[in-house]
């Protein structure tokens, strides 16, 4: 990215003043090296987001931002319905509510090492992964509707999880105001056999060791202990969310002129929040959030079943479950007052700071856990929301390392078998149905996750709590 076009606000914040139809500035949070490495498209896209009607305060790019469609991945923007604000299918993405959850195990690395190969194989066999994989659940239309309305609570009520999990999931496991009637027959069909499936691409299940603690107080509050292991699951709303994204992206792009919206880019498909199309999308999108929350809850349940085979203590309490691709109505401080805004986070995480009443009571003193996904070999971070994040980016933070290399380039650099063997030599067992998929997801294809979280911390978006090193990775 041509950094000369940006005004330097600090060592980790950069501003593009409004121009060429922008209704608000665009702000990028990242150290200079990360900004320089970002594709020019990130700046173009975040500037385009700032052109949309009703945008509040500024459009933001997180330290892991990269070129998406419409919004950059790692993009955050909030819209005011009373100011003609829009909701954007491109601003949420195809994998609605794709996110991460982390379970505590209380197990030591030695206990995992003793069964590492067998545990990896059992997880790979028990949890459906990759294209074509099916879950054991089959939902008829009535159960599908109940799931789309109930989210993780539906899963718990059907025996696929625990009541106490719900307190550790955003919105207590259920997006309110979901409208399953707005979920098409195509989307329902695509999901019928996909509950409890992990998916493919960058989705994964990892058994990880907590190797570093940066904030002992918050880590203790989260239940994280150095030298213990956790399980982290990264997946989303599967075919149902993908289909909702497909259908509404097209409808919004085609309908924009009739709705009086001049799209700066067709891929920024959106509709006024106060329109029939906007209302229908919100109902469907919230249903997809519930699908993702239910899906991760079921995978958590399947994981517990596998651990119970190997260990006496297979409870695996849930530390937290966060979503990355959402639009949520939240109250935020803007222009000296507070307003209810439709906050889009695409490849970004909500990051409420300590004391926020929207956090569960058990976490309120520490700030919201922010789970930063790694990439098989490079490790993951747990961060905590901080109070400054509200003013910086509507209480948002980054979501992962972010790709620095295309899939094509990655397969030219590495072979899947080589990646698997190299990781095994480092004590990390990878299980995947596709060696090419592993090559495309090679650790080197991602940015330096440490640099990304350092930028997030320096920007006042979140603070580092713990670093996790993978031991087992089930890759879709």
């Amino acid at each position: 990215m041509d950094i000369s076009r940006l005004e330097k606000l600090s060592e980790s914040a950069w501003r593009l003043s409004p121009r060429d139809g922008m209704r608000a500035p665009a702000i990028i949070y990242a150290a200079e090296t990360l900004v320089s490495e970002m594709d020019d498209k990130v700046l173009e896209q975040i500037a385009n987001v700032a052109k949309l009607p009703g945008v509040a305060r500024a459009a933001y790019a997180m330290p892991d931002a990269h070129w998406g469609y419409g919004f950059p991945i790692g993009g955050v923007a909030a819209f005011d319905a009373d100011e003609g604000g829009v909701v954007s299918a491109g601003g949420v993405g195809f994998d609605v509510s794709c996110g991460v959850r982390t379970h505590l195990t209380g197990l030591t690395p030695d206990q995992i090492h003793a069964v590492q190969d067998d545990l990896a194989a059992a997880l790979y066999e028990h949890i459906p992964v990759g294209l074509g994989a099916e879950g054991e659940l089959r939902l008829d239309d009535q159960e599908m509707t109940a799931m789309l309305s109930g989210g993780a609570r539906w899963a718990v009520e059907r025996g696929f999880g625990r009541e106490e999990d719900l307190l550790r999931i955003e919105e207590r496991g259920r997006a309110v105001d979901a409208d399953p009637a707005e979920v098409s027959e195509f989307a329902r069909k695509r999901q019928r056999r996909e509950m409890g499936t992990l998916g493919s691409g960058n989705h994964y299940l990892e058994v990880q060791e907590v190797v570093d603690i940066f904030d002992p107080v918050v880590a203790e509050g989260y239940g994280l202990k150095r030298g213990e292991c956790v399980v982290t699951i990264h997946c989303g709303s599967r075919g149902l969310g993908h289909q909702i994204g497909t259908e509404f992206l097209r409808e919004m792009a085609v309908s924009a002129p009739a709705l009086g919206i001049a799209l700066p880019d067709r891929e920024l498909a959106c509709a006024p929040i106060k329109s029939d199309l906007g209302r229908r999308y919100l109902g469907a999108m919230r249903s997809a959030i519930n699908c993702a929350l239910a899906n991760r809850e079921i995978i958590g349940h399947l994981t517990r079943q596998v651990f119970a085979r190997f260990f006496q203590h297979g409870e695996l309490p849930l530390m937290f479950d966060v979503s990355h691709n959402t639009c949520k109505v939240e109250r935020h401080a803007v222009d000296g007052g507070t307003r209810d805004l439709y906050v889009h986070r695409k490849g970004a995480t909500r990051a409420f700071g300590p004391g926020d009443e929207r956090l569960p009571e058990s976490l309120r003193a520490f700030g919201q856990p922010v789970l930063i996904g790694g990439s098989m070999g490079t490790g993951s971070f747990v961060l905590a929301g901080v109070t400054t994040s509200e003013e910086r980016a509507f209480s948002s933070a980054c979501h992962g390392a972010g790709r620095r290399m295309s899939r094509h380039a990655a397969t030219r650099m590495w072979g899947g078998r080589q990646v698997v063997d190299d990781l095994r030599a480092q004590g990390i067992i990878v299980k995947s149905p596709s060696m090419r998929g592993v090559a495309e997801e090679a650790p080197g294809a991602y940015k330096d996750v440490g640099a990304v979280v350092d930028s997030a911390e320096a920007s006042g978006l979140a603070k580092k709590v713990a670093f996790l090193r993978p031991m087992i990775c089930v890759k879709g």
Partner: protein
Amino acid sequence: MSDPPAIPSPPAPSKRWEHFPHDADLGIRGFGATPAQAFEQGALALVAAITDPALVRGAETVEIEREAPSLDLLFLDWLNALIFEMAERRMIFGTFDIKIGKGRLTARAHGEAVSRDRHAPAVEPKGATFTELAVAEDSPGQWRAQCVVDV
């Protein structure tokens, strides 16, 4: 901010599709003497994102019909129809017969059930996007159909 993308040269006649890079996802591009041929090759590029199309046997046929007001939307709808059928039927396609006329596409996609062992699918396409979406006749009788697919 960025230069408009250069019109790519078609690959050698034996391979009439290609992938182009995108940070997170994957660009697919098909070439042909007609829009239908470019759509067919674009579909092969989509399949090639998942597995080698040559590995796919044509054991089953699925019929697809779509209508759209423009060729680029028709290409988008064609790819999304394939993504839906592959997901819903747990299939993968390897060959296609396509006819296009007056904004209407009728096609037959030939394929088989996905096999983890034989196809080793690399990614699962989520949807075709408007990013880099274009269907154009770059020179007489030289059609190109392309877009980025979210994977």
